[in-house]
């Protein structure tokens, strides 16, 4: 009787303990992976010619989805701002809210989350498939460092292209808000621009781009990590892809809070 009660108490504790150990081991493996990637960076001969190709795949090809999301975010922001401010504040504050919110928060974060799904999942699935079909081993036997050949170009492309994609998304969101203000809120362009410039600071753009770069680093590095550690065939690749998207999304939100605390 006592034994079974003890078992009833210890089982959840054992689960918590195992989870903690697994999590710590996961961080350790990621640390080792990150150290390996840093060690591979000087091997420019291997990754140099692949960066541009990855910049096109991860950045240019992601523009349509990023701009689509940004345009509708700008529209909704303008309408909600107008709804909230009516009778309380001058309508030109719509421009202020659209500009500030797109640059400081929604431009980088929504783009980051969308690309965690598009880019992170793509990388994890591609590298995971290569792993389970022994293509990673094949690279090794052909004297290629997989970290230099596969990871470094993707991470660099993410680091460089996410800020560019986010810059376009920020601009598209603001244009979306401006067109909405013009056509649905009876605002004039000078009114919208007045609001937009009211609290604008060049730092806002830098803040947006810094966040975007950190999200690009996260999405690509996490996607590569889960892809390269995939095992167990198609099911394992699916699991790795899901984990990459979930982990990237969570880290993006944590980084979002971190940058707000650190820079604002």
């Amino acid at each position: 009787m006592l034994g079974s009660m003890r078992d009833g108490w210890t089982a959840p504790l054992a689960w918590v303990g195992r989870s903690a150990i697994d999590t710590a081991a996961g961080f350790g493996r990621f640390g080792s992976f990150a150290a390996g990637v840093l060690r591979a960076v000087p091997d420019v001969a291997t990754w140099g010619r692949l960066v541009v190709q990855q910049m096109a795949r991860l950045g240019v090809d992601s523009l349509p989805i990023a701009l689509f999301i940004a345009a509708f975010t700008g529209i909704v922001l303008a309408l909600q701002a107008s709804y909230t401010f009516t009778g309380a504040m001058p309508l030109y504050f719509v421009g202020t809210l659209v500009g500030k919110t797109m640059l400081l928060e929604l431009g980088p974060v929504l783009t980051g989350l969308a690309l965690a799904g598009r880019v992170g999942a793509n990388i994890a699935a591609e590298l995971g498939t290569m792993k389970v079909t022994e293509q990673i081993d094949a690279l090794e036997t052909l004297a290629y460092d997989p970290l230099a050949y596969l990871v470094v170009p993707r991470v660099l492309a993410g680091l460089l292209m996410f800020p560019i994609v986010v810059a376009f998304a920020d601009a598209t969101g603001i244009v979306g808000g401006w067109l909405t203000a013009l056509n649905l809120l009876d605002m004039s362009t000078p009114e919208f621009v007045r609001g937009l410039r009211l609290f604008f600071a060049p730092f806002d753009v830098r803040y947006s781009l810094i966040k975007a770069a950190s999200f690009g680093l996260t999405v690509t590095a996490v996607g590569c990590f889960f892809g390269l550690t995939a095992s167990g065939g198609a099911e394992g690749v699916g699991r790795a892809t899901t984990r990459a998207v979930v982990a990237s999304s969570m880290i993006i939100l944590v980084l979002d809070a971190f940058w707000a605390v650190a820079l604002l």
Partner: protein
Amino acid sequence: MSIQLIGVRKAFGDKVILDGVSLEVREGETVAIVGFSGSGKSVLLKTIVGLLRPDAGQVLVDGQAVTELPRAELYALRRRVGYVFQFAALFDSMTVAENVAMGLRRIPGMGEAEVAARVEASLRLVDLEGYGSRYPAELSGGQRKRVGLARAIATRPKYVLYDEPTTGLDPVTTAVIDRLILRLREELGVTGVVITHNLESAYRVGDRIAMLHGGVIRFAGTPEEIRRARDPLVRAFVEGRPELAEGVV
């Protein structure tokens, strides 16, 4: 110089796969390693090129301890060793020619014209001339294996390791692959290690045959010697009669 495995031990968790394997592959010979499924043949092959690190023991290639080599020297050693994967492991996003050229692009000073010529020669050697622009998805299983073989030999390695090169192939294609392995030995003088389930293949290509069982080399000898072996477990494998191995550890 040769490949030497000395007391190699490898376990995954509690499961011991290799429990002190010792084997020497002499220069110019082809050794076929046979054994039941799950006996650790592929694990053994992977330790030779450092894809897996043994828990204990030593792997020497040309006298160099594979596990102790710094990364740059390990990659230099790998340029002397071709590896043919069980399922070819071709890069899906590349054409056949690009696959075969991958190893060549790691050779310092080799220009594009030389790479192209070597790719063509390697594809000719495996009877796949004119297939360079195709993608792996457009090839049959046997053709994929031959491309894998062409990729492994493109750098003209001293050693070639074959991981079940004929598994899943029909008897005719199996014989074609076996003939290719023999041709590589004769024309390029490569030293080979062939992992196989197929005893007919092992007899055809192996100068010696080693049987891996229970984590150790249970038997090593010429094809003739393995045919005459008295060990019941070896006989069970050779004759395909599991009843002979009943009760044998």
